[in-house]
């Protein structure tokens, strides 16, 4: 053996020191593929064709492990030291969080990556997709310094992934104590007490279904692991350490250039188009040699990957039998991903034609609804622009297009409605073409006749324009001539306060029409009381429609005012307080009726409640009616006011006050009124109603209820609270009743004052200026011989109307 000289020994020493130095500078990464096994806490997302629990389907524990493997593979290749918390996916590999932390601490790692994916935890209609990095502590103040930088350095590469579709172009970074405020600073267990510069990454959202399918693909997971390695390189300042021929990767996805996914999920951006399964992707070098070949899988993600590609210029060729082959040139850089997505054009080898259409109508068939959409089903996915332009409808009608079944089906819906009783001719001209550009061979034409009804008609509405609504427990009620489509109907009704803030409904108490009802309705209680005196706006959207899709002719906007109907009324006398129903009688013709007291009230503690059912027997011709008798001795004369507080339920029956003729001491009876209209019960809640008795001399004796010709008044409930009497000023009758051609004379008079008119005079009354009747006579004159001189009023009754005149007596 030849003895070594000094130079040789020195060279060996330097080499040994170099190796030791290199090892000393070797970053150590601890990899924690989150979760483990296929248990309840391992995040199984069920997507077809995988059944729940199928370990081949999506499990976060699977994809995390594949990402972890890729990261470990890349880091080893790059000269890192690695440790990993699991290499299998069994329940036993799902280590406790404190075990993982202790393993990391024990390993002496420089950094710790916990690899996960995220979920919204929200309903099916809310899906998002973006990467999220979390570290220990409050945002901006990591417990282990550098952890926020570790996350930032990773985020750059995750967000650059063009194989996915992000819902926002932002890598969110936060401290776990800030991000989970409800966890009482407990944060993420895998970062708790972790001494390494550490983070947990939620790479994407696995309950965003296109991402779910991607995460099932091992190549897609591998790319995320590769990107983690770039994040580590950046964090450790090693991006420049690799030689120019260090390999990069090429990855991307394949989608149809037009065909839309036929699913109901939330889809973002390019994910709306159909991924291409089973496609062959070849990597061809600059000399034409195929250096790698791969295929997309058959589980709806279109992902492909070429690993370990030497830097240089390449051609990527994507082919699939139902699509035209496409090539793209790419340049691969050292230690970098090259993203190359393909939008493949479909091979469409026959001209387009209409396979089916609607409405299908022939002479003699029933007419079609005025809102019936026009639907055309094609044999190919159609070019939207060309096909919409090729549709002609005569008479012309404005409408909107909707495309379904991945553009195989076109739906035209009129903006308003077709004209009634009209024959429409629909023509799709042959210029309509499919996605490949080939037009139809001939025009396609059909006709249909429309019905006589085009819009939904309003039967009743509360609140009405400019009405007053009692401020407590207010309702909106809307009734129509046909049954309303009740699903989510309440969303089309809005009440705004004076500042424009929308009020909430008490959703649990909303009532909708049901099958068998003879009109459509929705009853919407507001969640909170209104403010008396404030103005509100009721808005009903035009889209309110019946079960056939017939909608309102236009949006409805009404203003109404809140009021307190329960305030005390001055200068009135209480006739009935509603506290006791024992003296109240009911009579008439009806199916059933009852009176009682109700705790719903405006005054005192109760109100009078009347319930009735006017349903007719099959063979009866008698019109139903109901008489509600109240004990009252109050005599009303012209100008007096009957005041009543009524709670209505929009039964739309007619309510009248009943009066009986009476005499007054030695004064003879005058012709009195017998019925005075109170209201039609076309409102909801309490109303305060005042009626001036126009003439006569009658005793109030109760109320009379009768149906109108509305289909809504078969049954109902009515509440009555404080019935009041208010003495009228004599001229108040004058104000309400105007009679022409009534003449009174002479003025002044000493013996008689005589009235004349075109019609028969039923009686006259001489009143003092306080409204008190001094003389009453059932003819056209009064004797004033014994009346002291002075100024008086003469009220003249003519055909149920009155006319009041100033007169003078002079002796």
């Amino acid at each position: 053996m030849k003895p070594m000289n000094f130079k040789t020994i020195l060279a060996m020493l330097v080499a040994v020191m170099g190796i030791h130095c290199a090892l000393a500078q070797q970053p150590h990464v601890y990899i924690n593929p989150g979760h483990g096994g296929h248990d309840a806490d391992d995040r199984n997302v069920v997507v077809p064709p995988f059944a729940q629990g199928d370990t081949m389907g999506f499990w976060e524990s699977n994809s995390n492990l594949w990402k972890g493997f890729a990261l470990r593979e890349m880091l080893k290749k790059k000269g890192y030291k690695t440790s990993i918390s699991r290499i299998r996916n069994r329940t036993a590999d799902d280590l406790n969080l404190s075990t993982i932390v202790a393993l990391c601490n024990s390993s002496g790692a420089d950094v710790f990556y916990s690899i996960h994916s995220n979920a919204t935890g929200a309903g099916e209609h809310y899906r998002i997709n973006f990467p999220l990095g979390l570290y220990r502590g409050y945002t901006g103040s990591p417990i282990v310094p550098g952890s926020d930088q570790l996350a930032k350095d990773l985020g750059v590469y995750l967000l650059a992934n063009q194989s996915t579709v992000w819902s926002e172009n932002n890598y969110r970074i936060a401290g776990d104590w800030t991000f989970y405020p409800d966890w009482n600073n407990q944060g993420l267990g895998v970062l708790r007490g972790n001494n390494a510069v550490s983070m947990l990454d939620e790479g994407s959202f696995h309950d965003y279904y296109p991402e779910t399918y991607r995460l099932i693909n091992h190549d897609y997971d591998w790319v995320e692991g590769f990107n983690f390695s770039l994040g580590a390189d950046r964090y450790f300042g090693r991006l420049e350490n690799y030689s120019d021929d260090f390999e990069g990767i090429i990855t991307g996805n394949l989608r149809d250039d037009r065909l839309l996914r036929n699913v109901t999920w939330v889809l973002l951006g390019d994910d709306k188009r159909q991924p291409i399964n089973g496609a062959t992707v070849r990597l061809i070098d600059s000399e034409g040699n195929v250096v790698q070949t791969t295929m997309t899988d058959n589980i709806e993600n279109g992902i492909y990957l070429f690993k370990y590609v030497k830097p240089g210029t390449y051609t990527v060729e994507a082919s699939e039998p139902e699509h035209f082959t496409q090539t793209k040139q790419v340049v691969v850089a050292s230690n970098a991903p090259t993203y190359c997505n393909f939008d493949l054009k479909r091979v469409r080898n026959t001209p387009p034609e209409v396979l089916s259409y609607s409405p299908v109508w022939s002479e003699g068939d029933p007419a079609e609804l005025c809102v019936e959409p026009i639907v055309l089903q094609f044999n190919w996915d159609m070019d939207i622009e060309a096909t919409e332009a090729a549709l002609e409808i005569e008479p012309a009608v404005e409408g909107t297009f909707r495309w379904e079944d991945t553009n195989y089906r076109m739906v035209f819906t009129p903006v308003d409605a077709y004209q009634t009783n009209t024959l429409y001719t629909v023509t799709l001209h042959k210029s309509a073409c499919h996605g490949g550009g080939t037009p139809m061979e001939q025009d396609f034409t059909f006709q249909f006749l429309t019905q006589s009804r085009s819009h939904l008609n309003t039967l009743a509405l509360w609140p009405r324009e400019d009405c007053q609504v009692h401020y407590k427990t207010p309702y909106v009620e809307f009734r129509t001539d046909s049954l309303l489509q009740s699903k989510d109907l309440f969303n089309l009704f809005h009440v705004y306060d004076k500042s424009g803030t929308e009020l909430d409904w008490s959703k649990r108490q909303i009532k909708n029409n049901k099958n068998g009802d003879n009109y459509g309705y929705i009853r919407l209680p507001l969640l909170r009381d209104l403010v008396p005196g404030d103005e509100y706006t009721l808005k009903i959207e035009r889209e309110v429609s019946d079960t056939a899709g017939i909608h309102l002719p236009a949006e409805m906007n009404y203003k109404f005012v809140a009021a307190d109907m329960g305030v005390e009324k001055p200068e009135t006398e209480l006739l009935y307080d509603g506290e006791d129903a024992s003296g109240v009688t009911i009579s008439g013709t009806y199916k059933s009726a009852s009176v009682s007291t109700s705790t719903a009230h405006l005054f005192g503690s109760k109100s009078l409640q009347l319930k009735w059912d006017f349903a007719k027997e099959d063979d009866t011709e008698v019109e139903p009616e109901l008489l509600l008798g109240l004990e009252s001795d109050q005599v009303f004369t012209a100008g007096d006011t009957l005041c009543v507080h009524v709670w209505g339920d929009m039964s739309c029956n007619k309510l009248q006050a009943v009066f009986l003729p009476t005499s007054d001491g030695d004064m003879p009876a005058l012709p009195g009124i017998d019925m005075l209209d109170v209201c039609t019960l076309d409102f909801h809640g309490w109303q305060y109603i005042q009626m001036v008795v126009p003439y006569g001399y009658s005793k109030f004796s109760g109320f009379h209820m009768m149906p109108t010709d509305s289909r809504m008044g078969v049954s109902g409930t009515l509440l009555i609270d404080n019935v009041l009497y208010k003495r009228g000023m004599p001229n108040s009758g004058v104000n309400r009743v105007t009679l022409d051609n009534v003449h009174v004379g002479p003025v002044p008079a000493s013996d008689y004052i005589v009235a004349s008119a075109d019609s028969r005079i039923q009686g006259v009354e001489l009143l003092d200026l306080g409204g008190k009747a001094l003389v009453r006579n059932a003819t056209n004159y009064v004797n004033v011989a014994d009346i002291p001189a002075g100024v008086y009023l003469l009220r003249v009754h003519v055909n149920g109307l009155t006319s009041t005149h100033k007169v003078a007596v002079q002796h």
Partner: protein
Amino acid sequence: MKKLLLLSMGCVALWGAAQQVTVVERTRLLQDVEGPAYHPVLNVDGSRLLFASGEQFGLKMYSYDDNVVTRVSDEAGAGIDAFWGGDGKAYYVTQERRQNNLVFRTGHCYDVAAQRSQVVLEAQHGAVRPMPATRGAALRGNASYVSGKSLGTAVTTQGSEVVLTVGSKERRFTPVDSDAGYLWASLSPDGQRVAFFAAGSGIVVMDLNGNVLAQLGNYEMPCWLNDDYLVAQNATDDGHQFTSSQIILLKADGTFRHELTRPTSMTMQPTCGGGKIVYTTIDGQLHQMKIQINP
């Protein structure tokens, strides 16, 4: 019938082996004196307690004799993996990031009598593993520190190996398979057995020749209460946060298990010494417990 008979015999045997465990003392430690405290470590006679002040801030020592808390180190992470040497001194490791974000770790020794810390292992990149020994302590890494010529018996883990040193002789054992590795090795008070945790298998008790004597279940952080019993943490999680955590008592031969705290108590990180059991809670409340075990 034969199965039923065997089952009945088994039940009788278990009942016969059942112990009566009574908690004779349960107290809150350092309430209103210290903030959240984690990683408690009792010395052998239970007279002193090391703990991390806050989740990862510094290291403190509580002396039961004079009821005084001493600040040992303010450096981040010092309280994680601190331990007592057989020489009565406390050992701990601190870390700092240096060029290119590599983490360098430094070994320290705290002399309780002198109330002074000194660096015993210069900063180096990579792991520095604690190794308590019956007569001293060691800190092992690329470069190592040994407290004296003879450590007595020492035990630690490295990867999926138990590293046992008796005198100057080091032996390595892999008695059970573990993909992720071993943790929390400790020597029984009589020096005859080693308890450790194997990821994926749980707590294992072996003799000094590496023979498995018992596997106690998938619990963590075992510590010897006496020669026959260990105390451990039994925690569950959903992959992100703890869902339960309790302190349990285990007989070293695997024949008995008893819950010392409820699963919902979120108690964790037990340590034993001088017959005391000290543990913390998820929000850092230190508790002490003494138990009586009747055979």
